[in-house]
């Protein structure tokens, strides 16, 4: 039965792509100031990116080929080649979006359709989770605005707001599309990074190349290296039902692939891309954290888990929490409310900025892991869930 259904799908998809009716809609990219078509604006105040949304497969650490919906980066790909180039190339985590405070950000999203589910005509969006003062048209929540049909594009615009760690995801049929993998890291770098060399910040001297989480005014959120760690949890019963065109188990979804950035341990510490069964890089974001002793490590922690709240813990090192939900922890009187902890709970949709000071720890390997102990494994492997390594040299 399954094989027959599969053949049916292939035939259908072939039919769909060979005989599809010509539509007026097409992939169109909006990037003001891009004069040479590389998808990058020549105007220094404009940042552009082009994402495609569709389907594909991920490869989990036990070899499971997980059907996913997702995003892939097609910035610079000519408009007439996006539809063919992006098919089945989707990734978990979605491509990381890094924006700079105050810039004009143009994000084009093109929907290339779902090859493995030609029976579906789902539109897609990007929800800029946490961006302040949204307008519904750019919020990506489809009930209140619009979503992008297959073979079409829409360009989101944001005047990039306050620095900090945000999240993005597709908000169409949110439970389904998010469980299926349309989740990514998104963060905004502060203007304080661009100060002139030697600028004094309340006793702290800024030098070119110094990086901060926020416009802290005192260097207290300085860091040397940064790593986004996004909690994403996947339920194989949901993904299998999806690829087999079965009713989707919403209430019964059971997250048995708890991941950091779309990978379960030990894939989390693989510094290179994980390739899927089609030979495409499906999981590009490594969670291996490396630093030289004495460096300050910024972890941009966020959760897009669809079921549980997760507590992350580190053994042998403290986290200094400097921000939550893209806001510096500071009271109106200017008092820093940073705190030290070795565990931090995140519900879906939350983000935290934590800094690890490695000056007082020995060189070696430390572990960042989920204290939800059942999430330290995946469906078939023990010690293969939300675990990653912090290597101090």
């Amino acid at each position, binding site marked *: 039965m399954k094989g027959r259904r599969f053949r049916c799908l292939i035939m259908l998809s072939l039919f769909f792509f060979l005989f599809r009716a010509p539509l007026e809609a097409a992939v169109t990219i909006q990037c003001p100031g891009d004069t040479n078509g590389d998808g990058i604006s020549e105007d220094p105040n404009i940042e552009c990116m082009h994402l495609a949304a569709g389907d594909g497969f991920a490869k989990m650490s036990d070899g499971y080929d997980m059907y996913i919906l997702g995003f892939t980066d097609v910035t610079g790909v000519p408009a007439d080649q996006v539809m063919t180039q992006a098919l089945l190339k989707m990734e978990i985590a979605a491509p990381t979006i890094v924006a700079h405070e105050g810039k004009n950000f143009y994000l084009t999203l093109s929907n290339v359709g779902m090859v493995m589910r030609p029976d579906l005509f789902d539109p897609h969006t990007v929800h800029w989770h946490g961006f302040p003062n949204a307008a519904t048209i750019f919020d990506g929540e489809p009930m209140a605005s619009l979503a992008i049909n297959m073979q079409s594009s829409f360009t989101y615009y944001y005047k990039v707001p306050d620095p900090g760690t945000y999240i993005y995801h597709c908000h169409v049929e949110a439970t389904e599309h998010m469980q299926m993998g349309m989740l990514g890291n998104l963060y905004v770098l502060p203007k304080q990074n661009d100060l002139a060399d030697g600028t004094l910040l309340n006793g702290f001297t800024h030098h070119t190349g110094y990086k901060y989480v926020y416009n802290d005014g005192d260097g207290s959120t300085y860091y040397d290296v940064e790593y986004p760690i996004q909690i994403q949890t996947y339920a194989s019963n949901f993904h299998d039902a999806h690829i087999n065109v079965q009713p989707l188990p919403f209430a019964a979804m059971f997250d048995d692939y708890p991941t950091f950035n779309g990978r379960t341990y030990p894939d989390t510490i693989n510094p290179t891309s994980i390739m899927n069964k089609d030979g495409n890089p499906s999981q590009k974001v490594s969670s291996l954290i490396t630093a030289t002793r004495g460096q300050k490590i910024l972890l941009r922690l966020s959760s897009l888990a669809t079921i549980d709240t997760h507590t992350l813990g580190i053994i042998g090192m403290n986290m200094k929490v400097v921000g939550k939900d*893209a806001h510096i922890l500071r009271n109106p009187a200017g008092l820093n409310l940073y705190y030290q902890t070795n565990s931090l709970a995140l519900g879906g949709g939350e983000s935290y900025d934590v800094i690890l000071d490695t000056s007082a720890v020995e060189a070696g390997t430390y572990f960042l892991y989920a204290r939800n102990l059942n999430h330290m494994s995946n469906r078939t492997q023990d010690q293969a869930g939300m675990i990653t390594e912090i290597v101090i040299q």
Partner: protein
Amino acid sequence: MKHILRRKVLLFCCVVALLLAWTVTGNAAISGVKGKTFNLTAKSGYITTPDGNNIFMWGYALNGGTMQYPGPTLIVNQGAVVTVRLTNQLSVPVSITFPGQGEVTATGGIPGLLAREAPPGATVEYQFRVSQPGTYMYHSGTRPELQIEMGLVGAIIVRPMVGGTVITGQAYTHPDSQFDHQYLFLLTELDPHIHTLVEQGRMNEFNNTVVHAEYWMINGRAAPDTLLATNDPTLPSQPYGSIVMAHPREKVLMRIISAGRDPHPFHNHGNHATLIAHDGRLLESVPGAGADLGERHFTTNAVPGETYDLIFTWTGENMGWDFYGHTDPTGAGLTGAACVAAGVPLESGEPLENHCKPIPVSLPTQDALTFGQFYSGSPFLGALGALPPGEGGFNPNGGYFFMWHSHAERELTNFDIFPGGMLTFLILEHPNVVLSVP
């Protein structure tokens, strides 16, 4: 913008608007019962879910009336001595505990584990003095793992008093808690299997370690019923709606109560909100300092048993374009004060810097897009635009709809049907629109 108004759409929307404004009009207060003495009856009844299910419940009814879920929201004044008289019409003992209230005395009934209980047919009376303003809950103290699931839970709102008078428009005695509108979000989840067991008298088969919620509720309703009016006649046992309405720059007080067994990360679209209080205490470093330890959130992880008060404001600042859609009449690209001088006045509270700045992207043709039922057809606040036949239509004033929902996205379903569950909307309306919160 006027040129994009379509008469037919407008007419249809007027009809929808009349439907929306069906019951109560006026400013947004939290629906409930005010006073010092409350007569509650524990009794059984049924609620309905948007997928057509009827679910057997136990709940607190006011003055012997209809069982309701959640129980009546008790609105009391700080300093009052509150008396709650509970009469039990169920076949099992019940009680009430009042987390966050000190020195509760109970008379009548029989001793219980967490509270004095009323056996079937009997009455127990609780009395306590509410010393601190804020957001609280009350719930059964008798087998709470079953009885809260069954519906014996409700909210208490204590209004701040200074010098013998209630401070209206404030959640606490400090002005950091000022608001224009206040809304309650009592979050629960529900496993219908348990309710069936209880209804069939198979209560001893209830296994507290095996609970699988299928419904997730705000104020006792699953979406889209959350968007029906308060006291909607089709939901006689679920009186409380949760539509949120506001104008730009108005302060919205969100009173979140996590009343069930699971955490519910509550995400408010539109803007960040400032957490000002937790469990009925202002987040202040020293008494009188105001909410100086408050945090700005876009998600509040409401964990079981806790309450949160947040202030939300949408200002439209720093958007980089004019969200009212004003245009420079001279065609010279005037913005800000120059555009005002050219004869285009600012709307109330509109940020000057983006006045008359055009939307920076061109929108694709309609065949490229799928439109939501709450989309006005226009990117501008207070404007309507053309939509394909059958699309949109539930946004008569051209407001911005922002989903406020659990970000544990599994909870946005009703028995495996999306969308539903723990979601509602903030409707941000143009300043000229008179709010009529249903």
